[in-house]
């Protein structure tokens, strides 16, 4: 039996984490079929069909799929599920909202947010905000699995030519109505996918001082993060929060400035490839996870950091 991957898209194009989810799906079974449910989503369907590891694309189109409402999506997936051993999608807000609804209809105990496929029925997943890893074996005949996108590499996105099969749309769920979506527009990379994240904490002392973080981030082409303490103090808006209760990030470089390193913050960034901590308290817990620690007053260190960056001939973007 094959794996059914639920594609995430915006009706114009695939959203990037779909590629990571396809990688995870292909590690469960090489027979990966991708389901795309949308409205006027022909371009995204085409992109999906060009992914080499995708063997077949199932496309469902109807006006009531325009806004990805889980109540509309789940009956379509449940109906197709009989032909598949696994249903897979990303554990971001799209998949978290959708998959349990599918799993309950299939009477399956979902395995959420896996970071590794050990075998087709056994997976590794973080619990307690990443403070422990659990190896979970599913004994359900049909398995619903959501994957942590940053734990899997994106798959190759061109060169394939999977067949596209149209599937009949389901009925509209009338008790849920989409009103609006306000996307945060920014020239900066998205916090969840940025290669570099520069974060500030309570040590920044004010919202005004957060400009120092912004300058460094601009120079490095980085996203801006913050600790919960900085968000609670009102220095920066809450969509920047990194941690157990904010976003979990896994960038190549994470720079923590004026962040002490509370458990709840570490849970959101300690899987980053390289961690830098700048803090004047040499005993701060953030240093225990930092590859490079600098014990210094951040108000002296940040201008120097800018100066040193300006001396470099090139900066990777």
């Amino acid at each position, binding site marked *: 039996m094959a794996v059914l991957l639920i594609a995430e898209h915006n009706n114009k194009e695939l959203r990037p984490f779909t590629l990571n989810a396809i990688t995870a799906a292909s590690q469960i079974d090489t027979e990966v079929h991708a389901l795309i449910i949308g409205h006027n989503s022909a371009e995204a369907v085409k992109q999906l069909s060009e992914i080499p590891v995708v063997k077949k694309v199932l496309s469902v189109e109807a006006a009531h799929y325009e*806004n990805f409402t889980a109540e509309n999506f789940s009956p379509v997936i449940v109906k197709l599920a009989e032909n598949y051993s696994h249903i897979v999608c990303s554990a971001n807000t799209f998949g978290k909202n959708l998959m349990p609804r599918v799993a309950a209809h299939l009477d399956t105990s979902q395995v959420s947010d896996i970071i590794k496929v050990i075998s087709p029925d056994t997976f590794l997943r973080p619990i307690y905000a990443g403070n422990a890893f659990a190896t979970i074996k599913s004994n359900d005949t049909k398995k619903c699995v959501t994957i942590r996108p940053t734990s899997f590499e994106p798959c190759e996105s061109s060169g394939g030519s999977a067949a596209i099969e149209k599937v009949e749309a389901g009925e509209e769920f009338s008790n849920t109505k989409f009103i609006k979506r306000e996307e945060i527009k920014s020239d900066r990379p998205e916090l969840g996918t940025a290669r570099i994240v520069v974060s500030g904490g309570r040590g920044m002392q004010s919202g005004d001082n957060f400009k120092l973080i912004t300058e460094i981030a601009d120079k490095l082409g980085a996203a801006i993060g913050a600790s919960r303490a900085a968000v609670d103090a009102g220095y920066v808006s809450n969509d920047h929060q990194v941690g157990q209760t904010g976003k979990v990030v896994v960038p190549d470089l994470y720079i923590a400035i004026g962040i002490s390193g509370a*458990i709840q913050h570490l849970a959101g960034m300690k899987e980053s490839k390289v961690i830098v901590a700048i803090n004047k308290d040499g005993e701060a817990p953030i240093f225990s996870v930092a590859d490079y620690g600098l014990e210094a007053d951040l108000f002296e260190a940040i201008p120097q950091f800018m100066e040193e960056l300006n001396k470099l001939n090139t900066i990777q973007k």
Partner: protein
Amino acid sequence: MKILVAVKRVIDYNVQIRVKEDGSGIATDNVKMSTNPPDDNAIEEAVKIKEAGKATEIVAITVGEEKAQETVRKALAVGADRGIHVKVDGILEPLAVSKILQKVVDKEKPDLVFMGKQAIDDDCNQTGQMLSALLNWPQATFASKIEVKDNKLEVTREIDEGLETIEINVPAIVTCDLRLNEPRYASLPNIMKAKKKPIEEIAASDLGVDVAPRLEQLKVEEPPKRKAGIKVANVAELVQKLKNEAKVI
């Protein structure tokens, strides 16, 4: 409107958890336990709606072992009117909890069911959506703002791209984000009063729900430790290391 609020007892969010040496799970003996943080937001929101005159009764429910009842008692102290404790020992998966809640919903007939978006122990993020599927009710997950309008709710949801607003008809399920509100503390007089509020105890076995786990937890281990880093002497050395050693800038 009647609101049912589901709460879960978990290890307190400020506790550094300890993995048992035999790999069988997380140590919970003598560890401080509390209500799952976003469940506190769910209770708070229900109380605010009642205070605004838009709800008539708040029922707090928990599913779990004997001591789980503490979380219901706490909910009663901040404004819930009565409690329900569905008693069951052992590991409970979200699917089993949602089936139990479905039975209670059938009996209690609430207009709304609130709960936290995720429990901070197993981090599953499933129960609300599963209950909503079993009842075929609308779901508003990750809610950061709720407006009650007659028999509808307008809910703002926290999504990866930003914010989404949806309108759902009652009866409905809402799972709450930490940003929804600031949970209040119970006052001492209210804690005393809560002791007199009724908590109905139900044995899970009486509900006719199969709660046997479908998942086997083969092993729980500590995440790989990061190798010890170094302290650099100054900013120049830091930038040089990032450029030439780590090669990340």
